[in-house]
């Protein structure tokens, strides 16, 4: 009997290297491929885990809220009655919005300030407020020669709110008026901002500013308070010190927003040096009396200019 075709299956297959044992080189290749495949799978599995760690806070510590209003009172030079008025003005405002007041006394910082003008004391005073209220989100420094005239405005709705601040920030503006070659950055967003201040016609004004809690605040205040700056005999002491670091140190400028003067620092109509549209108008948040800053030597005194505005404020508060 003849078979046209060889039997489909040999009952005794020839011993073949292909069936049970792969050649050595092939085995090695497979091993490499398998290992590579495992590696790829594990990496795919791990990638999401690698990128899901908790965010870092570069600015304010977690859980901060609220505002501390820092007022530095020179009890050796201001009369008791005047201090009473300022304190009641600040306390009324803080009560309305749940803010905290921090009243500092200039003479407490005289060791730190040393031989330099007393006005430098505002820097350790703000630092002191930060140490006393570390959970606060913002510190609002306001000169004792200023009155909050429209206390219904909260700082948040007035300035700090994200879209509000971004629309207010003055971009590409000479840092020191009128013609400094250093200009404010034009691409900053609200999240970049740690320091908010205003300019008058000649300088950035440290009499009224808002500082966000965080590492920048510590750096900024410590740097500003550098003994070699205090020692330099700037004519306007800490005011020129601030102009200086803003112009020379981009890491400071990059966290700074300058806003129109009347928002935070409207000058009384009798005072000189306001920027264009920097003088107080009815309904503005606050009014400042820069002429009263340069206090003459002698017995404790008031700020005469303030009296009439204080009456207006008092009447307004009583009517509410």
């Amino acid at each position, binding site marked *: 009997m003849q078979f046209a075709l060889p039997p489909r299956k040999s009952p005794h297959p020839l011993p073949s290297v292909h069936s049970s044992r792969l050649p050595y080189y092939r085995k090695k290749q497979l091993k490499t491929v398998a290992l590579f495949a495992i590696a790829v799978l*594990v990496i795919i599995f791990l990638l999401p885990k690698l990128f899901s760690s908790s965010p870092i806070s570069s600015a304010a510590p977690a859980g901060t809220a609220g505002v501390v209003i820092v007022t530095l009172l020179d009890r050796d030079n201001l009369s008791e009655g005047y201090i009473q008025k300022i304190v009641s003005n600040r306390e009324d405002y803080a009560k309305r919005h749940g803010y905290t007041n921090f009243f500092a006394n200039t003479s407490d910082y005289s060791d730190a300030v040393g031989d330099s003008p007393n006005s430098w004391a505002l820097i350790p005073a703000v630092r002191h407020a930060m*140490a006393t209220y*570390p959970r606060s989100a913002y510190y609002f420094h306001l000169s004792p020669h200023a009155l909050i005239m429209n206390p219904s405005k909260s700082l948040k709705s007035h300035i700090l709110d994200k879209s509000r601040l971004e629309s207010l920030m003055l971009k590409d503006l000479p840092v*020191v008026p009128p013609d400094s070659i*250093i200009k404010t950055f034009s691409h900053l967003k609200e999240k970049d901002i740690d320091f908010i201040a205003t300019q008058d016609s000649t300088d950035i004004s440290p009499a009224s500013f808002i500082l966000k809690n965080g590492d920048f605040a510590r750096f900024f205040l410590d740097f500003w308070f*550098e003994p*070699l700056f205090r020692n330099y005999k*700037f004519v306007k002491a800490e005011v020129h010190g601030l102009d200086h670091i803003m*112009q020379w140190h*981009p890491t400071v400028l990059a966290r700074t927003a300058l806003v129109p003067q009347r928002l935070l620092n409207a000058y009384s109509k009798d005072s000189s040096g306001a920027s264009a549209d920097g003088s107080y108008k009815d309904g503005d948040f606050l009014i400042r009396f820069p002429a009263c800053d340069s206090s003459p030597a002698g017995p404790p005194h008031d700020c005469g200019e303030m009296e009439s505005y204080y009456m207006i404020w008092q009447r307004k508060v009583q009517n509410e």
Partner: protein
Amino acid sequence: MSLSRSPSPRPGGGWSSPGLTPSGTSTPRGFSPSPSSLAPSEISWAAAKAKSEEVRGYPSFSTRNSGFFSRQKRRISARLPSMARQWSWRTILEDADAAKEDAGLGRAYAGVHWIFLLLALGSETYREQTVIVHLYRRSPLGGGRKFVIILGSNVEGGVMEWKGAREWAIERNSIWNKELYAHEWGYELEVANLLAKKRYSHEWRESWEKGDVIREVMQKYPHAEWFWWLDLNTWVMEYGTSLQSHIFSHLEDKVYRDINVNNPLNITHPLPEFWLDEVGRSAEGDGRPESINMLLTQDCSGFNLGSFFLRRSLWTDRLLDAWWDPVMYEQMHMNWEHKEQNALEWIYQSQPWIRSSVAFLPQRSINSFPPGACGEEENPAIHYQEKDRDFLVNMAGCMYGRDCWSEMHHYRAVSNKHNKTWKEWCEQTYSGIHDWFFKPEDVQEQE
């Protein structure tokens, strides 16, 4: 003359201030002085600036690219365990075990190490394995890219002084030494050419260029976290010691943050001011290793910046920005004999935010001195100890009455002696492991 306000920046660079300009005019209103009165200095400044632009292609400061994602990525890489120590499959296993001990993601990382271990075992030749190890070290997982070594080169060279054969030999050897070390561990090496010295001579701020160079390198290597500045007269003695195992895997154990541990300058620490917060008055900053942004050593007379680390951070941006200031410089340049080193000592003392992020390493961990530096007497806290296999020698001050080249030659020989034995050891270990793993299989194949 009245110091009305700060010296203002001028268009095109430079500044004018009462103490430094020969004319003695201050510039109370921006930059009013007439161009003609300043013409000569303007021209040379512009020329120097143009020259330095050729060398430096990166702007010195940027407010961009500080976004969430880039910060996240660095943080992730900072947490990754490193393939530290001398490479062998055993060390990979140890790393994996160490990683397991870390909370949270540790187990996952351990898995990654196993992959590389398997890959390494899967390959046959020593060469292949070395390639895999180096690939791993350079990869984001290995962590080598976290580190950039910046070597200040061409010191006293170029236009300022004639450079002889010995100076060239020092430069060549020093660069070779850092290249070898950087390659071994997958680090980046940036040889900073300080050719643009002229620019700083004009600005009266020479030797602050360190800060500018570091800022530029930080932009060039966006993935790196730690930047290690080395002067040219240094020698890495131990190629087998990685920065991770030597310092960064156990940062909090390796450093001291309270300067009273070693206080040659007698700095008042911690600060007593009642108006500072707790961190400002603390001897140890906030005590968390994450807040350390600068690592340096002190020698017998104070801070030493021949070998120091800076971490990429907002703090470091601020330090590099605050380090030089015209008003500070104008008052102190006669007193600051060691220039930027003294300036750092000054701001460390005067500005509390600095000290809470600075940590010190014992001098010999990254900055051993040869005998003759810091006094004639041998001091085991300062001088190189061969029996302890110190990591790095800094031939500080060798240009003043000592011989830089012969010192470098000597330490090169010592280092070669040590590292030869290491390589031999490594090869022996390797062939032992290889035989143990693969010999039986090979023998079986042949049968």
